[in-house]
């Protein structure tokens, strides 16, 4: 009884110290704004004007020092170090965002200024340098368009998907469900790793060499007819398959063994377990992986150039004739403008508009991947 009493008294007389001094929540923001203002001031005094890179670098440095000083003075060393770490991480993040945002901004502003419904629905059929010269002189609106390139992008990418998704997904299923890490499985994994590193131009050369050899054998001297959208699709597949295999493999390995065993225990055969249990459980992950693979190859330029050439007009046929895609259209416009000299600006504007469409396509695909993943993910809620 007495002991208990003493203990209580001791606890009262010596309360544990759990609180410590802490800066108000808004402090980092106030310090940051103050640092920016000081940086602008220095920029005006030392460099005679507002200079964004100088202000950014200075503001970052001043902010870091100020945060540390303020925090160390008030909160103590441990908290100050904590705050400086937070500041460094945040600054690095902002630094990483700079190229990304400026790229998007540039594409949106330049492409947005040039884009019009006409560009989206017309091809370069009958395009002449004089039209661009008149446009630059302000006499007519921007002529030409890249409808053919949009069609080419969609067709070639779709064909590449039709080839590579089944191959990629089935390979991944073999690796995860059947190979048991046997020789063949290890060999496939190795080849997939190697394929991941293949430069895209090499994939293009490979596809062209393959089909021109076939064409030459069938009809000597006709290697040139191998330049088609389909050849380009095969080249893209070479790039896409390893990505699809990798993503799918990773997702399939995430499906718990428990689920497979639960299915086997019901007397369900293995193939049916894969089709009805494993794939539905992982379909959202597989599809978002596929979408990321598409986004990755849709912007490929080099392999398309060497396999499908450059078309100026609409071609719906994947199996004969040259085709353009948005990336090759952009490349071609910049490298070989319709009109040389000052009027090359018109070609450049068309290229920016095409770039905007391409970026928008990639963004839509990424968004789609997220939506698919959300909608198809197994529901856990009650």
């Amino acid at each position: 009884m007495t002991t208990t009493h003493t203990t209580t008294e001791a606890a009262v007389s010596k309360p544990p110290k759990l609180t410590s001094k802490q800066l108000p929540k808004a402090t980092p923001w106030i310090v940051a704004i103050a640092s920016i203002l000081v940086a602008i001031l220095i920029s005006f005094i030392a460099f005679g004007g507002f200079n964004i890179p100088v202000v950014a670098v200075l503001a970052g440095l001043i902010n870091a020092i100020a945060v540390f000083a303020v925090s160390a003075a008030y909160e103590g060393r441990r908290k100050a170090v904590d705050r400086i770490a937070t500041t460094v991480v945040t600054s690095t993040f902002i630094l990483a965002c700079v190229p990304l945002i400026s790229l998007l901004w540039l594409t949106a502003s330049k492409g947005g200024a040039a884009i019009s419904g006409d560009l989206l629905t017309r091809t370069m059929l009958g395009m002449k340098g004089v039209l661009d010269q008149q446009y630059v002189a302000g006499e007519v609106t921007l002529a030409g368009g890249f409808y053919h390139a949009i069609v080419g992008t969609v067709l070639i990418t779709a064909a590449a998907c039709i080839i590579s998704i089944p191959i990629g997904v089935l390979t991944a299923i073999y690796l995860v469900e059947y190979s048991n890490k046997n020789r063949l499985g290890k060999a496939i994994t190795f080849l997939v790793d190697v394929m991941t590193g293949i430069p895209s131009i090499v994939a293009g050369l490979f596809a062209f060499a393959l089909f021109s050899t076939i064409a030459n054998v069938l009809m000597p001297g006709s290697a040139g007819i191998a330049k088609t959208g389909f050849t380009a699709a095969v080249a893209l597949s070479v790039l896409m398959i390893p990505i699809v295999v990798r993503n799918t493999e990773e997702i399939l390995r995430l499906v718990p063994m428990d689920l497979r065993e639960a299915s086997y225990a019901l007397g369900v055969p293995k193939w049916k377990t894969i089709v009805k249990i494993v794939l539905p459980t992982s379909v959202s992950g597989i599809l978002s992986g596929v979408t990321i693979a598409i986004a990755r190859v849709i912007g490929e330029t080099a392999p398309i150039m060497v396999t499908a050439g450059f078309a100026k007009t609409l071609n719906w046929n994947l199996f004969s004739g040259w085709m353009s895609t948005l990336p090759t259209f952009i490349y071609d416009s910049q490298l070989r403008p319709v009109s040389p000299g000052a009027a090359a600006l018109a070609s450049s504007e068309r290229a920016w508009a095409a770039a905007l469409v391409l970026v928008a396509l990639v963004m839509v695909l990424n968004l789609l991947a997220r939506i698919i993943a959300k909608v198809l993910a197994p529901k856990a809620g009650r």
Partner: protein
Amino acid sequence: MSKQIDIKDLDIFYGDFRAVDGVQMQIKPRSVTAFIGPSGCGKSTVLRTLNRMHEVIPGASVSGEVLMDGNDIYGAGVDPVNVRREVGMVFQRANPFPTMSIKENVLAGVRLNNRRLSKSEADDLTERALRGANLWNEVKDRLNLPGSGLSGGQQQRLCIARAIAVEPEVLLMDEPCSALDPISTLAIEDLINDLKDKYTVVIVTHNMQQAARVSDKTAFFNIAGTGKPGKLIEFNETSTIFSNPDKEETENYISGRFG
């Protein structure tokens, strides 16, 4: 329904590692048999050989015989898929299919085995299996919601419903109550008591009171040390095992005097 199981000279391996050695046992139809023993002695391993689930693990193998009503399930030409249709299993961790609703989970075994069900047959079977697993009243209003939205104990009973919906002859349960509260545990023990009218039940448990409550016969496994194979020490009437077992080793384990 329900079958007799004769285990003869069963050795079980993971790759080169001999996990269980020389098991002999005869399990009577319509009875409950409990496997007890320290962790790592091979209870799960033996249980999983009874529906050929052991070989799902890469490198795992078995020698010896497991006769089900006289037919060796490891005999030549036996399809493990057919064995598993006769011998259902409930796992230690509840594993309902996450993409399926409660009802679909119950019907999964039947549907995936290509049996077409009319709507009324499906409804009947769902109700029967869920009632059998003591879960019907709790879920009858939300049969179309995901099975993974149930509580742990409910999920475990859902898995039992899923296992009995395919009407196996034998039901294997690997520590079905290890993650459950006393009330759910009691519900499952009651369920096991009911199931024994129709099925041969084999249950692994670490809970000796549970073994004493639910089982007719008890098998005690033990292991001499790490890396050594597990052995069946004693297989006897549950009442004998828990009152005066034949072996001293059993007595020590039961009374908590270990080693």
